[in-house]
């Protein structure tokens, strides 16, 4: 198990008391979160827990009704769940376009860096529409990294990938964290939290139920738990979810 446990004391993103309502429904009820440099933070919870809403607010895609953020959207890299890239453009053209829109000072340098990091240098001239889902997602992540942000937000990055593609994507993401980027991601896959997250954030019905290491979560559950997934389910049951 290649767990990343690089913990730094430097908070690069702080969200405090975030509240979001959709009509009478409360999607987030005063959620706070801190992301530190070089750490992977996994946000997990059942459907409708508010994971994507939280990430959208951190990304600046949605506005919170209450609460505060320490960074403006431009300073945060965001990778939406569906690859937000142009299928008729090549890998390099996509990177070049978004680098220009991001007003990156050295566009070609940033493109080269991203091609190198994603390992897609030999596919640079291939149109996105001809790439596999995994490679498209790597380009999607690379676009989020073009401005060299201190924080990268990933919304269910492996949702549509097969196991092999997932493995390769996580290799890429953990490499980013090792290089010092604070990575915050949402997932339905509890094992991806256990395996890669330094901090796990558990949401249910818009409430923050837990924030700590996966080991701490396992310790929270009374009695012997066979594995992390069982511990997580027991944790939710114990809190009425």
């Amino acid at each position, binding site marked *: 198990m290649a767990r990343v446990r690089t913990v730094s004391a430097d908070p690069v993103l702080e969200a405090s008391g975030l509240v979001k309502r959709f009509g009478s429904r409360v999607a987030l009820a005063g959620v706070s979160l801190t992301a530190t440099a070089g750490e992977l933070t996994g946000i997990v919870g059942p459907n409708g827990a508010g994971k994507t809403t939280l990430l959208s607010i951190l990304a600046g*895609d949605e506005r919170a009704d209450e609460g505060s953020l320490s960074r403006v959207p431009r300073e945060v890299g965001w990778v939406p769940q569906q690859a937000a890239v142009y299928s008729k453009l090549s890998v390099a053209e996509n990177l070049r376009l978004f680098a220009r829109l991001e007003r990156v000072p050295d566009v070609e340098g940033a493109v080269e860096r991203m091609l190198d990091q994603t390992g897609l240098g030999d596919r640079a001239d291939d149109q996105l529409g001809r790439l596999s889902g995994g490679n498209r997602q790597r380009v999607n992540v690379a676009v989020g990294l073009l401005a060299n942000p201190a924080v990268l937000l990933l919304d269910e990055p492996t949702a549509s990938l097969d196991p092999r593609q997932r493995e390769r994507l996580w290799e890429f993401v953990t490499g980013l964290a090792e290089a010092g980027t604070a990575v915050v991601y949402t997932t339905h896959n509890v094992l991806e939290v256990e395996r890669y997250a330094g901090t796990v954030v558990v949401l249910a019905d818009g409430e923050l139920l837990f924030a700590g290491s996966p080991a701490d979560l396992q310790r929270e559950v009374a009695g012997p738990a066979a594995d992390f997934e069982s511990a997580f389910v027991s944790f939710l049951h114990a809190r009425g979810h």
Partner: protein
Amino acid sequence: MRWLLGKDLLVLKRSPLLVALLVLYPLLLALLLGLALSRGPEKPRVAFFNQVPSNAEEISVGGDSFDASKYADEFFKSIDPVRVSSREEAFAKVRSGDVLGALIVPPDITTKLEGGVESPTVEVFYNAEDPVKARYVQDTIKSRVQDANLALTRRFTDTALEYLDLIATGGRFSFLGRDFNVLGLQRSEEVLRAARRRLPASSPLRLELDKVIGFTRLARENLDLSDEVLGIVGAPIRVKTTVVRGGGTPLTTFAVAVVTTLSLMLVSLLLAAGALAHEREENAFRRLVRSLVRPEALLAEKILLGALVGTLLALLLLAGLALFVDLDAGRAPWWVVALVPAATAFAAAGVAVGAAAREVRAASLVAIMVGLPLALLALVPSGAVSGTLYDLTRAVSAVFPFRPALAALEAALRDGGEGLAGPVAHLLGLTLGFGVLARIALKRFA
């Protein structure tokens, strides 16, 4: 914005099927509509038997000669003549349905016209199996014969006026190679007045001469009015034409304007609607507007794309049409002045559709389903429907760019800059309106 514009043009370049459809479909549709608009009823086939000997086609009236065959040439512009060599052949062709009618010109038509005593008669046979075409043949022949009658009447009137002038004022006159000196009423009056002066004051003949002098003066003064009277006889009713509404655009120019405006509408509307919806289908919209591009700038870019491509294609279409239709290339700068705001307004309507429909296929379908009926509505002429319905069609078509775009292009093709300001201002207003609608629709776009 320029990077996104460049991206969209690159995507277009790499989508040849889409570009082909985007260009060919509007062109095909516009071409069909143009044909329907510019082509009048098909010329009816009419058998024509001219019995006038070729050496007798000149008519001589009052010393002037003119060629009667030029009236036949005018007539042939309205029909498809089938020349036959006998009256029987003409009749047989009508009976068999080979032609819809036959016109028989008698051999003595020119001599009777020259003689001025008896009116010549032309014969017309109809095939009335197709009532619509039969009516067209009747109307065409009747109309052209009336034209010929009118032209000949003018000739005879001119000749008669020359004779009357000779009677009124006197002068020399040639007939059958001999010259005659006509005294005329004016000189007769002078001669009579001179004779009266030579008579003694008490002569009873003076009273008689005064009566004759009075008659000659009265006759001369009334003959001076003869040109107006004969003019009225020649054309009892004159037609004065005044254009009350519309610019009096020739049919061909109007057809070109309709064809071009329709193509422009389809290209700009579809492209802008599709390009905006495409951003959502590629999931790029949220990424773009999160921090990279303002939503207003994204809309402006799509409008620019639609306007740019639409204008270029419309200009190419006009250049192509100019090869077949008489268009004044010197007005080309005015074409651009009309096309740019028109394309911009169509593109603005396109982004409103794209923002509302949110998917490329839906946006394209909605653009066509909304655009085409509104375009056709703008072409409904006054008088075709009731007054209230017509006012309604005008009100509805006023909130869509087709009608002002057509008016602008008509003005640019016809008059140059004259009459452009109103439609262009209308188009700018619509651009703003659709831009605001699109911005509102974008709130639920992602």
